């Protein structure tokens, strides 16, 4: 996954988030405070605007810069979590020094782990982790199985979708919806939705490009 790809992916992510304005806004109005779309928009737009500053750097440095930038632009709960994710990924990429599918899978897993630590949350708490943890597990498994990237992408799109949908029937125990008890049931978690959208955006791009990660 080249820097060029990351920059195109950033645009795709931004477009996807912007396309889902009303849905993301509604979700956070229902069980949160209504700002998740605006937070995400601010973050993803800023990254796209940074394009020129990022172009010259290797992928790990780019992801780390993206993380740092998200940290100071998104705010809220999603800001430090997504920022941590990219910085966590960047660290593994830098350590491993290669760009294999395996490396990306373990970088992804590392990113998700940082989110877990930072948010003190786990699967089933009605957060973005209900998308990220299943996707990360699946990704690791499929990479270990040496499945080709396009197939991996197809599977992960479905996994993310299922994870997102799974939050609908959960009671929230972390984040702003944690106070709602039963009243959170029936609503999809906004952070889960935006993570699913971002994963789908990248996977679809990979599928279109038929470009391999390695």
């Amino acid at each position, binding site marked *: 996954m080249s820097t060029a790809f990351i920059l195109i992916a950033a645009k795709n992510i931004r477009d996807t988030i912007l396309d889902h304005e009303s849905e993301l806004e509604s979700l956070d109005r229902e069980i949160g405070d209504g700002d998740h779309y605006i937070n995400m928009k601010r973050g993803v737009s800023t990254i796209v605007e940074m394009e020129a500053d990022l172009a010259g750097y290797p992928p790990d440095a780019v992801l780390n810069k993206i993380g740092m930038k998200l940290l100071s632009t998104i705010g809220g709960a999603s800001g430090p979590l997504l920022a941590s994710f990219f910085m966590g990924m960047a660290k593994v990429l830098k350590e491993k020094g290669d760009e294999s599918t395996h490396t990306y899978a373990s970088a992804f897993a590392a990113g998700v782990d940082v989110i877990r630590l930072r948010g003190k949350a786990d699967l089933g708490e009605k957060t973005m982790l209900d998308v990220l943890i299943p996707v990360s597990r699946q990704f690791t498994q499929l990479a270990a199985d040496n499945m080709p990237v396009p197939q991996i992408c197809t599977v992960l799109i479905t996994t993310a979708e299922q994870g997102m949908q799974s939050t609908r029937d959960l009671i929230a125990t972390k984040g*702003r919806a944690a106070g709602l008890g039963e009243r959170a049931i029936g609503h999809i978690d906004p952070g889960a939705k935006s993570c699913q959208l971002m994963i789908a955006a990248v996977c679809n791009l990979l599928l279109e490009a038929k470009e391999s990660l390695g």
Partner: protein
Amino acid sequence: MKKFINKTDDMLVESLSGFASAHSDLVALNLEPNFLTRKQKASNKVAIISGGGSGHEPLHAGYIGHGMLDAACPGHVFTSPTPDQMLMAAEAVYADKGILFIVKNYAGDVMNFEMAAEMLPFESATVLTSDDCAVINSTYTTGRRGVAGTVIVEKCVGSLAETGADLQACKALGEKVNSRTASMGVALTSCTVPAAGRPTFDISNNELEMGVGIHGEPGRRREAMRPADAIIQDVTNAILEALKPSQGNEALLLINGFGATPLMELYLIYNTAAKLFNQHGIKVVRSLVGNYTTALDMAGASVTLCLLDDEIKQHWDSPVHTPALRWGV
């Protein structure tokens, strides 16, 4: 949505600029990253920094000044500020005795302040405020939310810090005040986040939201509109249940407007709440009534009770000189 704004993107900076210029004798504003500090830097004391999403004015910037905060970091509307704001603010107000962050207990605020604290080149500690007893503590929750009781924590800790007390003492007082404080809010209408452009929640003309959060988060239940006495009885009962005060306990009673509820109604609420607490053997000896921790343009109010002891009372009474709270100076 009808508001006095130009562009939603510019609203925060324009409002902060107005605030800083209206109170230029007390505060100074830095933009990019956004933070406000006292005009006159204090020396040799724990620097108290708070912050959080905007839309709760006068919280927090309104409490900058002698006897209260050294700096405040305003996030976007209802969105926690980012660590770079806290880092720069800390740099600006550090006064050789460490930094105390006062943070309302929301995942976003907690994490952003936590990351700032990790990156900080100074010693720091954090007090999390969690006075909202609408959220019943149970296995389902990460803990209660910080709401209007935060003002009382900031006032008392700010007072103690002014005496030269150390970081741990300030943190300990903050936690004590927080543990003796409980609040619950009621919404009659929703707030409207400017960038969203429409109400956060729908509520009909004969409903209220009991236990609403200061961002319009749902509370304990949606219920039919009732006379004020009945509504406030439920609120004071929840507070009594949370604090379990003993007979004769002295208390501070804060009736806080959410932004669109007139003072006339807030005083009516005060009247009812004070009577009810009194019936439970509580002596209300200090009062505060007004818009102190708002939720944009929400019609509604919260009741906060803080159980006083001599130490808290002394720090509540000590002089304070900020844009939104001032006495003794």
